[in-house]
């Protein structure tokens, strides 16, 4: 077992001392990746900000319209009885005038 451990340690040491030549072209590649990441971040920021603006507009619009709607309903409730009477009268007037029109045709 200890011989295995020795082998593993010898391996580990060789790995740690492995030599790879560094080239400037490697950095060119890496810096392009870093630039890309920044751009992506910018894009993400843009998406989030425009998204939140849209959400706020939607919310304001929703609140505004529902309030208008409820005001209308309230108004309709208050004027309910007179308006129906008026409507009935108008309907009667309309049907009587229609009848006269029909008679004229005949």
């Amino acid at each position, binding site marked *: 077992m200890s011989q295995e451990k020795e082998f593993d340690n010898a391996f580990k040491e060789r790995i*740690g001392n492995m030599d790879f030549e560094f080239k400037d072209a*490697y950095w060119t590649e890496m810096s392009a*990746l870093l630039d890309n990441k920044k751009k992506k971040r910018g894009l993400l920021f843009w998406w989030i900000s425009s998204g939140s603006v849209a959400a706020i507009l939607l919310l304001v619009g929703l609140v505004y319209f529902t309030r208008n709607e409820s005001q209308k309903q309230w108004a309709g409730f208050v004027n309910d009885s007179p308006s129906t009477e008026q409507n009935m009268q108008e309907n009667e007037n309309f049907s009587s005038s229609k009848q006269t029109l029909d008679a004229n045709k005949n």
Partner: protein
Amino acid sequence: MQITSELLESCEANDRRGQKRLYELFFKMHMGVCFSYMANEEDARSMLNVAFLKVCTHIETVKNNPQVFYSWSRKILVNSILDEFRKNKRVRENEHRKEFDHEMEFESSSHDNDGMASLLEDDLKALIAALPENMRQAFMLFAVEGYSHKEICALMGITERTSKWLVYEARQALKKGVEKLNNWNNKMVI
């Protein structure tokens, strides 16, 4: 060149010259390990780049502790490598499975360990590259990173038994390869 707080701060401030210096140091520090996981230089470099991006994004966590940069960035690298392996998970379980418990008893342990030190670097790289992916990975995690078999089975999604077998097989393959290559090189010299 050494890792200093100033260097890490300049990287945090997105100073390109600082980042280049850090990248070069990072490359020298970890390329050997990264190559040993990935088996070829191209893959190793692109993996190194993935890890360096993460290093740059989280640099503020170590900027006041430059002495931990090595182990911290190594952890980031190994985790990135493991993520990559998990993404391209191939059939690992039962792949080359043998009843290794019996084999271990018959295996001679006469290989000497000095061979590893005298092996040529290119030969070592070729030996590592020749190992099957899962063996290489398990052996690296065990022998170089110092993980236990229990930890390796969680990291690689394999059983403890498979982990033991992979490490054992990788070690045997390396030992045999070292012996063979050293013999061959000695003959060439004579």
